[in-house]
C-alpha cells in the first residue's frame, strides 16, 4: 500500500543509488585485484582490504540506508533507528571479533596449520594450558 508522499519523494533519477552501486562494485573488484594480483605482504593485503570493507560499509549506509535522514515525525522512529544501529554494531563486532577469538584460541588454531608439524607455542593458548596439554593425547 504505497504511501503517496513517500512515493513522490522518490521520483526523479536515483543518482545516489546508481553511484553507490557502481562504487560498491568497483571497491569489491579493487579488493579482489589487491588480493589476487599484487605481491604485497599478507599484512598489507589485509590492512588494505579491511580498509576497503569499512569504506564500502560506510558508502552503503550513506547511499542506500538513509543513515543521515533523521525522523522529525516521531520519537519512536528515531529511537528505533538508533536501537537498530547499535544492535547492528553489536552483532557485527560479535561476529568479527568473536570469530577471530574463537578460531585463534587453543586447538582451533591448528585448523590453519593442518599440515605443519606440531609447532604451537603455549603462550597463545586461550588460558588453561594444563587443560590443553591434557587434551593432546587424544588429539594426536
Amino acid at each position: 500500500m504505497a504511501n503517496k508522499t513517500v512515493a513522490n519523494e522518490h521520483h526523479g533519477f536515483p543518482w545516489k543509488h546508481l553511484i553507490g552501486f557502481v562504487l560498491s562494485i568497483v571497491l569489491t573488484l579493487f579488493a579482489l585485484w589487491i588480493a589476487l594480483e599484487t605481491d604485497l605482504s599478507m599484512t598489507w593485503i589485509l590492512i588494505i582490504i579491511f580498509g576497503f570493507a569499512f569504506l564500502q560499509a560506510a558508502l552503503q549506509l550513506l547511499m542506500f540506508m538513509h543513515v543521515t535522514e533523521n525522523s522529525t515525525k516521531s520519537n519512536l522512529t528515531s529511537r528505533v533507528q538508533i536501537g537498530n544501529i547499535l544492535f547492528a554494531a553489536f552483532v557485527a563486532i560479535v561476529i568479527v571479533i568473536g570469530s577471530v577469538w574463537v578460531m585463534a584460541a587453543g586447538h582451533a588454531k591448528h585448523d590453519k596449520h593442518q599440515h605443519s608439524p606440531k609447532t604451537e607455542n603455549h603462550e597463545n593458548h586461550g588460558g588453561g594450558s594444563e587443560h590443553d596439554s591434557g587434551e593432546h593425547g587424544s588429539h594426536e
Partner: protein
Amino acid sequence: MKWDEFFVTGDPMIYGADVSIVLTMVGILFYLTKYKKWKWLWDEWLTTVDHKKLGIMYIVSAVLMLFRGGVDALLMRTQLAVPEAKFLDSQHYNEIFTTHGTIMIIFMAMPFLIGLINVVVPLQIGARDVAYPYLNAVSFWTFFIGAMLFNISFVIGGSPSAGWTSYMPLASNELSPGPGQNYYLLGLQIAGIGTLLTGINFLVTILKMRAPGMTLFRMPMFTWSSLVTMVIIIFAFPILTVALALMTFDRLFGSHFFTLQGAGMDMLWANLFWLWGHPEVYIVILPAFGMFSEIISTFSRKTLFGYKAMIWSMLLIAGYSFLVWVHHFFTMGSGALVNSVFSITTMAIGIPTGVKIFNWLFTMYRGKIQFTTPMLWSLGFIVNFVIGGVTGVMLAMAAADYQYHNTYFLVSHFHYVLIAGTVFACFAGLIYWYPKMFGYKLNERIGKWVFWVFTIGFNVCFFPQYFLGLDGMPRRVYTYSEESGWGPLNMVSTIGGFMMGIAFLILVYNMYYSFRYAKRETTGDAWDGRTLEWSTPTAMPPFYNFAKIPEVTGLDHFWRQKQAGKVEKLKVEDIKPIHMPSNSGVPFIMASFFFVAGFGMVFDWMWMAIAGMIGVFATLFYRSFEYDDGYYVSVEEVIETEKISK
C-alpha cells in the same frame, strides 16, 4: 552427465517415489483441467498478495514438508529399531538424516511459523495488509522454490548427505562429490532470500502499520514475539547467506575458504554456521512462545501475567542469542577460556526463558481454565519444554558436553525443545486460528486424540534417547551392534516414533472430517478471544480485513470492549473507499527463474544458471518500471461484503 546419473537409480523405494510423484502430478493436472481450475489457481493463489492467502500457502507447504520430513524420520527409526538392520545402507541413511534435519528446520518449522505470522499479525495490529504485500509474495515464492529445489534432490541427482550442519571438509567436493551438497547450498540460499525479506517486511509492518492507539506496549504478545523474531532474522540470516555463498564458491569455483588445502579453515564453516544457527533456534522458538502466550491467556480468561517481563526477556534473548554459538562445538577445543565464557553465556540464556515459564504459570493461576485442544498443547508444551531446557543447561557445561556431544543425549535435547516447543506451537496455533483461516473449527474430540497420541508417542520416542546417549550411543550412525545393548531402548523409541506418525494421520483425518461436518462459525470470535483478529464480524475476515480500522485504547482491547458491552457496530457513514494492493504474477515468475538458475548451479551447468539469473534480473527490471499504486474498493462493495443494511 548420463541419464542414469541424472536420475537416482537402483533403489526400489526411490522408484516407488518416482511413480508416486508422477501420479500426483498427473492427478493434479487432470483435476485442474477437468474442473477448469487453472484460472482460479492463477487469480486466487499464484498471483495473490493477500497476507492471509500467502499465510495459508505457507502453512500448507509446511504441512507437506512435515509429512516428507516425517517419512524420513520413520525410515530412520525403522532402520534403528533393531541392531544390524539391513533396511537402509549407510549412504542412504546419511542422506535421509541430512534431508530430515534440513527440511524440518528450514522448510517446515520456519514456514509454519511464518505462515501463522502472516495470517495473524496484520489482523492483530488492525492493519489491512503487510507493509510490502508484493514483497511478501516474493518471500513466499522464493521459499517455496527453494524447498522444491531441495526436495527433488532425492530423485534427480542424489540428496546431500553431510548433515543439516554440513560441516567441512565432509561437505567438500572430495568427500561429497556430485550435485547433492549443491542442492543444500542453493536450496537454502534461495529460500533464505524469502526469509530475509519476510524479516524486513514484518519489522516494518509491525512498526509502521499498527492501528491508531496501539502503542508498542499495547501490542499482543504474539505480535511482540514476531517483532523480536524479525529482528533476529534480519541480523542472523545474512551470516548464513555469506557462509553458503563461500561454500558454494569452494565447491563450484575452486576457492579455499573452508577447504583443507590452500590455507582454508574448515572449522570456520562450523563457526559461521552456528553464528547463524543458534539465533535460528530462537527464531523458531520465539513465535512459539508468543502463540502459547495468546492461547494460555485466552483460555485462562486472564490478561497475560508479567506482560512487560515477557517482552524484556524476549529482547534479552534476542541479544543473548548471538553470544552463545560456540556451545555447539565446545569439542573443537578452543581452550578453557573460550569454552568457559560460552558455557556461562549459554547458562545465562536459560534465565529469561525460565522467567517466561513462570509468567505462563502465573497467568493460569486462579484463571478459569478451559481445556480446549490449543490449551492442551500449551500445557503439554510447558511440561515437556522444561525437560528440554534442563537438559540444555546440562549440555551447556562445557566439560560435561565432551561427554554428551554427538550422542543421542543431544538428539533428545533438541527434539524436546523443537518438538515440544515449535511443533506443539504450530499445532496449537493452527487449531486456534483455524476458524480465522477456514471459517470452522477442527473437531475437538478428534483433536484431543491427536494430542494424547502425539504427546505420549513423543515421550516414548525421545525420553529413552537420553539414556541411549548417556550409554554412549553416537548420533548419525546407521546401525549398531547387538553387544552394545542399545537394541531394546531403540525399539521403544521406534514405537514412539510411529505413534507420532499415527497422530499426524489422525490430524489430517481431522482436517477432512471437520471440512465435511464441522459447524460453520457465524461470528468472527470463535474462542471468545481477546485480541483484534477476533473482532472481525465474519469468521473469515474479508480481503481488506477491517472495513473500519479499529481504534485501540489498551492491551486486550477487544476483550475489554466485550466486557464493557461496548463492541462497536460498523455504521455506513464510517465506510470509506479502501486502498488495496493489486495482484501480481511477477513474484511467481521470478521465483521460477530462481529455480532454473539454482538447478543450473546444482549441476554446474553455467549456461543454465546464467539464463536463469537473466530471467531473475529481467523480472526485477520489469518491476522497477511498473507503476501500480493499487486500487480502491468502493464503498458499495464494502457494504455488500459486510452485509450491513443502510
